[in-house]
């Protein structure tokens, strides 16, 4: 699990001297960031990745608005209901609607057999009134981007879950926890990685040796026992989110080694450079030296590393849920949702329950492409 995080950044020399093409002329006048952007733009998949990532974060931030329903709202009749088909035109006019379902139960298997009730129309619209919610604790509203025009009518574009809640809404809400928690984890492991890698590269000698050994030990210790230990240790009144944050911290604590090695090798080169030497002679303390003088020279690499570390965290969240040590209901995350889908019974009968997996695959791909592009662009000269 942890290893998806560190992957192979450790041994990745960053490409240098990328071919200069049509932008050659203006290069001399462009800032570094602009150069990077030009370079980045060329990686089409990375641009797509960027758009997707931004979209995800916007949707997650305003989940209440984008989701047609609250993640708790349920209709008993829509347990495991298949996705409703969205129709746009009615009687030749643009008037989106869905049909509700009626159902019977198979007398032996108890499986619900849903029938589309084509007689009844549920008008669908933009900016409709639905479940009310608070916006950042400031004011209360009930406006949703889209949904059934009449509050309380069934609107299940991705189908219903185990207790008849809207899968689409829940998948949107899941993005919140999954994306935010991943950020926390990655930032922490990056910080540790930079500080320890930096010290190791900068100071060398005994410190370097010690940190090298620490990296080796951390890489060889399986994280699984640690996670299990922590999961069992937490007090009963802790919310699952808090528990999970602890687990993420642990993943972070074990996941810093990759970046540390990159930073170290970078610093080994950098410390010989004049400006560092100058700062040193000037008496700058090590940490200050790292953050003020040396890091800015390869921010881009760090951004790339963060981008590439995030998908590992997101996947780790689903994996932990599978093993029973991740987030648990009532928390809403992709892992929790997929936990309900990890049965042959569900895969064969209610495959739409896998929708959160699609969301995971897309964002992980997007992060990877984005990171790839950033890395290509990292050294635009």
């Amino acid at each position, binding site marked *: 699990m942890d290893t998806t995080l560190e992957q192979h950044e450790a041994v990745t020399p960053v490409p240098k001297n990328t071919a200069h093409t049509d932008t050659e002329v203006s290069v001399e006048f462009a800032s570094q960031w602009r150069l990077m952007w030009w370079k980045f733009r060329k990686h089409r998949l990375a641009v797509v990745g960027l758009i997707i990532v931004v979209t995800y974060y916007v949707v997650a931030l305003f989940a209440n608005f984008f989701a047609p329903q609250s993640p708790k709202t349920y209709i*008993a009749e829509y347990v495991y209901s298949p996705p409703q088909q969205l129709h746009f035109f009615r009687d030749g006019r643009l008037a989106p609607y869905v049909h509700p379902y009626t159902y019977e139960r198979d007398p032996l298997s108890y499986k619900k057999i849903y029938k589309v009730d084509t007689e009844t129309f549920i008008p669908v619209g933009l900016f409709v009134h639905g479940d009310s919610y608070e916006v950042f604790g400031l004011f209360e509203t009930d406006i949703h981007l889209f949904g059934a025009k009449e509050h309380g009518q069934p609107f299940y574009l991705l189908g219903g879950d185990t*207790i008849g809640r809207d899968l689409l809404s829940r998948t949107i809400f899941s993005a919140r926890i999954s994306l935010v928690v991943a950020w926390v984890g990655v930032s922490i492991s990056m910080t540790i990685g930079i500080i320890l890698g930096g010290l190791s590269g900068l100071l060398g000698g005994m410190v370097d040796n010690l940190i090298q050994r620490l990296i080796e030990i951390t890489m060889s210790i399986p994280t699984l026992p640690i996670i299990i230990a922590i999961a069992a240790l937490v007090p009963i009144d802790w919310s699952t989110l808090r528990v999970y944050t602890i687990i993420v911290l642990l993943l972070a604590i074990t996941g810093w080694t990759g970046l540390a090695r990159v930073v170290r090798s970078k610093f080994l080169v950098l410390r010989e450079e004049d400006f560092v030497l100058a700062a040193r002679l000037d008496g700058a303390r090590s940490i200050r030296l790292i953050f003020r003088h040396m890091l800015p020279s390869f921010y881009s690499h760090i951004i790339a590393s963060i981008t590439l570390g995030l998908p590992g965290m997101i996947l780790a969240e689903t994996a932990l849920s599978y093993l*029973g040590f991740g987030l648990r209901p009532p928390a809403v995350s992709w892992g929790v949702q997929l936990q309900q889908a990890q049965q042959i019974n569900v895969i064969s009968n209610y495959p739409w329950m896998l929708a959160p997996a699609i969301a995971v695959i897309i964002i992980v791909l997007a992060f990877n492409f984005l990171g790839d592009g950033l890395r290509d662009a990292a050294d635009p000269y």
Partner: protein
Amino acid sequence: MRKLCLYLFAILLLIPFGKTVNGQETYHESPMLTALVEAGELPPVGERLPTNPRVVEPFKEVGEYGDAMRMGFVGNNPGWGGLWYVTGWENLASWAPDFSGAVPNIAESWEVSDDVREYTFHLREGMKWSDGAPFTADDIMFYIEDILFNVELSPAGPSADWLPREGAAEFRAEKIDDYTVKFIFANPYGTFLYTLPQWNGRHITWFPKHYLSQFHADYNPNVAELVAETEGAEDWVSLFNIKASGPTEDTNNYFNNLERPLLFPWVPTSVLGGSTEMNMVRNPYYFKVDTEGNQLPYIDEVIGVSYQDDEARNLALANGDIDYIKDATGREFFFDALDSGAPLAMSFWNDEAGNTNSIHFNFNTQDAVLAGIFQDLNFRVGLSHAINREEIIEIVHQGQGIPAQVSPLETSPLYNERLASQYLEFNIDLANEYLDKVAPDRDSDGYRLRSDGERLSFVLSVPNSEAWQANWVSVGELLVGYWEKVGVEALLDAVSADVMTERREQNNFEATIFTGEGGAGLTPILQPRYYVPGEYDSLFGVSWYYWWAGAQDAVTIEPPQDIKDLRVQFEQVGQQPTQEAQVAAMTEILNVAADKFWVIGISRPGNGFQPYNIRIGNFPDQWIHGWGEGVEKITYPEQWYLKQ
């Protein structure tokens, strides 16, 4: 050569004069054993069977011998994974297939004194352990005298789950002759016979003296040598426990000790470990025959296949890779598979349980104010009225079952209408009315306030790591929603079963959801956990239980006098000599349970399903399923057979 001739002569002699059933037929055996008999490795079937073997009537037809049945289980423990229920579990008595009562099994017959204090058991003459050594009254006496009453093996005094705590030290057993034992209890013990077929009765015929005495200090002065050479043994007591899988050791560890003699239809021949499979082979000395004199079991071998995850096991069954699994999940999947031609057959079972779930509020919880609220009947009644049971049935239980409290089933002589149907109505106003008596004030969010001004909020711990707990979290999520509507905040806390065990051992939970045993027949007496405090699973009074059980920990709380009196009153149920008297006495207890309303129930369970490979013959189409009933054991797996 001469020896072989002798054997052949003996066999020739024996065939025409073989033992008979009902004085007419000869016994028959599996061809697999005939080969061994012919090779001289085994005595003939007539000598292996007791003079009066137990005759089992096949459920559907007389079966065929042979073949290996593959059984899938999840985890590393074949016994608990399901093999104990199918290949083990032979006690003095067993249940009749329709659960109508205890019938003779290892015991050929028994007599009970009028005061139900003395039980005389007649064993089967000539019955043998799986290694061929005779099984006699000495084995039972070895258990009673050298294990139960041995101060080192039972340091806390004689304690067994078939022996009432009250008067345990005065219990004694007498050997009348090699095949007759008499049990004499200190107090009347009218329900003893119901204990015998159950898990609780397993130890009585569990300990082979001829094998185990070598590990017993009283019998083997040099036992220290064996201790030294045995991995994991610290002293002779732990050595004995390891080798015997008892008395304190988990019984199902016998799957790890291949040399231990057993009385079961199949005995293990390989252990689980590197491979994902373990093997069992028929016990040539098994003491049962069918109506035509064929020695049981029909099936020659059982192969236990270990899975790490339920889903692979389900697929393997649908695939035909394995023949049987305990606790199948995914009803729709299996019926689909059946329709699409998977090699499956389907059986249905009626759940023993009186309810799908019991909701416990921990009266002993460490927060005194909360404990006070929990103990208030109005609180529980209010919350019960706030539950929309029809909705839970629709959402969680696939529309099966009817709303009910935890109570004996309608078919049971113990059915108690008040207990079953009180406080069932889903009525928010009524719920609020009751709750207003407990906590009328509310905070700005609409939640009720406790007497100390804090929000009335508790943690609802829901174990959800086992397959059979799969839908409990859904129930929990719905409950949280219902109770929020009446101003009570429940915080859902989904935990693994292990963590939950830890929490109950430390009295570190506020409310929880558990099973609903104690529905069918007399099971409310045998499984009284939700009708009277003082049982391990009476989670509403977890520290009271620890007080009765004599735990030394800080978690014990002495129950108030009326609860103690109730417990004494319950102990008397088991002392009643006749079933009528037992039912009458238990009815009193159930009336108190109705008054006290210990736990909140949801609904009666719907019917269960059991898929199995179509080649298994003699599996019942309909059966009663419950722990007290022996789960699979009540289907007599020894008479299952594999169709060619």
